[in-house]
């Protein structure tokens, strides 16, 4: 184990490796499960910027949360004879068949979202979904500060591995502090999530907290709580622009958001594939730690999470 590269920093390429990469004129495929949130965009931007810097061509595609589409795109990339494929899986276990084919073609695959059911990937890169969500959840329970507090979870109706890890994280956090989850509701659309959050607040007069498992749910929960005028605290997974603006306003019910380091992951994606082609050994799992973004540290977190981006508040 100690021979393998274990962190995003470990993946950095040396000057000699960079020269080697430039000479090989590599093309990588870069598949995202969707492209309409800040995380994916930042991930793609991070990857694109670094690929450009080191002279790798990047083919970016988006699956719109459709596992079948992602598989077709994966196959098309194999057809295109790319030198490596990075993907944020819609459903990690659904990509196994294609990974198996990539193995046969000797194309390295680097994946976010869990190991596929079949085939070998060079490594699984993970934000600490479980830990991030556990930490944010614990912060929420601390802020509520009472035993038996009722909380609700607002989520995405989906078989994403990361969402399941997030759910597990929050359930453990609530359990550890003696609270109880009284409602779990999900939807895709921000507007419907707002509706769900409003309904849950309406139905449960003793509700003390809402945990939002993804960015749109954070936005919806914030708005619903604000409109209800009730004293309900919010924690969530994903810290994106609306969340930062909310934290920056100085008057917010959000206690903590778990932020992924998308730009770092984007760069690491390219580096990991390049390392593998250069025959370096990657550890099975490469964790990029999450940030716990709060009203106290948001400026600092912003510059880590979205390096170089203008502050939206």
């Amino acid at each position, binding site marked *: 184990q100690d021979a393998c590269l274990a962190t995003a920093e470990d993946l950095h390429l040396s000057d000699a490796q960079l020269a080697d990469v430039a000479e090989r004129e590599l093309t990588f495929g870069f598949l995202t499960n969707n492209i309409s949130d800040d995380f994916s965009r930042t991930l793609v931007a991070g990857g694109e910027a670094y690929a450009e810097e080191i002279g790798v061509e990047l083919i970016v595609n988006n699956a719109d949360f459709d596992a079948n589409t992602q598989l077709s795109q994966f196959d098309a990339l194999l057809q295109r004879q790319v030198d490596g494929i990075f993907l944020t899986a819609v459903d990690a276990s659904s990509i*196994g*068949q294609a990974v198996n084919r990539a193995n046969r073609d000797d194309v390295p695959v680097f994946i976010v979202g869990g190991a596929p059911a079949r085939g070998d990937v060079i490594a699984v890169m993970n934000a600490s979904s479980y830990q991030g969500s556990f930490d944010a959840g614990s912060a929420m329970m601390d802020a509520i500060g009472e035993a038996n507090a009722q909380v609700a979870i607002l989520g995405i109706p989906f*078989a994403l591995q990361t969402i399941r890890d997030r759910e597990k994280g929050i359930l453990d956090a609530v359990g550890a502090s003696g609270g109880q989850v009284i409602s779990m509701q999900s939807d895709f659309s921000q507007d419907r999530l707002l509706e769900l959050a409003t309904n849950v607040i309406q139905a449960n007069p003793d509700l003390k907290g809402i945990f939002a498992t993804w960015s749109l749910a954070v936005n919806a929960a914030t708005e619903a709580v604000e409109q209800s005028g009730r004293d309900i605290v919010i924690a969530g997974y994903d810290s994106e622009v609306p969340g930062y603006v909310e934290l920056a306003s100085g008057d917010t019910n959000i206690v903590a958001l778990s932020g992924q380091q998308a730009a770092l992951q984007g760069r690491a994606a390219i580096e990991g594939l390049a390392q593998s082609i250069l025959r370096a050994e990657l550890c099975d799992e490469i964790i990029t730690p999450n940030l716990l973004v709060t009203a106290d540290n948001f400026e600092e977190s912003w510059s880590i999470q979205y390096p170089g981006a203008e502050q939206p508040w």
Partner: protein
Amino acid sequence: MNQSAAKLLRDLMPYLGLILLIGYFSLSSEFFLNARNFERLATDSATLMLVAFGMTLVILIGEIDLSVSAVVGLLSVILAQIMVAGMAWPVAMVLVILISVGIGTLNGAITVYGQIPSFIVTLGMLAIATGLAFVFTGAISVAILQYDFLDLFYSEQIFGLPIPLVIVALAFVACLLTLNRTRFGRELFAVGANMEAARLSGVPVKQRKVAVFAIMGLLVGLGAILSAARLGNGAPGSSPTLTLDAIAAVIIGGASLFGGWASVLRTLLGALLIAVLNNGMVLMNVNIDAQYIVKGVIILFAVVLERLASGVRT
């Protein structure tokens, strides 16, 4: 000579959009035009093709099936779960197909005997199947570890052809012959165009409609098996766009949404257009945001060409 060239051109007109698109991709990408890519295209779009063939029959008789993508999800989950529980894959496949035919027949029976639009019945079925698939799995896809099953569909070949392609080809020929060379098929055209006249001509309209939904069930079942084998698991919500793509393939093929005319061959071309477009855009590295616009414009272009051609024909 000249006349036959003109006739050839006229006959090809409806397919011009697809032909031009394939020509363009072939010239622009060295990776597009080869047997391996077409093999992949065919296997990747096998489920879409099967469902689109079934949808052709359903739309022909003036009905619709909105439940397919959810039912494919549910069936793949059931397939995976019974295989995990230890059932041999051939038995599991037969069982899943039976369930699927049952669901199709149920859709048809409620539509026909409850006299409510198939739109509503299958909308209800969509919600029910989605819910059940998630309830059964707790939203966690169920991996299929019987590799002989997976490899049968996605590694092995018959006569040098991948098995999904063979299944699609057989289904295509069967649907084509059914529609054009059997009593049943001819009757469907009449049922779709004028139900009352068909009834007064001795066509058992209700049975025919239920039968079409049952056939749809059969094709959806096959599609679900291929989808599960391709993904290597039973996954709820794995193909959210399947229904719309299948309907779009039928309509791009020139059928009326309200029944009376449809053609399996044209549907095949409609589905191919969608599949080729998705594949070609990846190969050509089209910008992710622009892909939507490109897709819209090319579908429009292909359909306008097709309509111009039908204008010429009448």
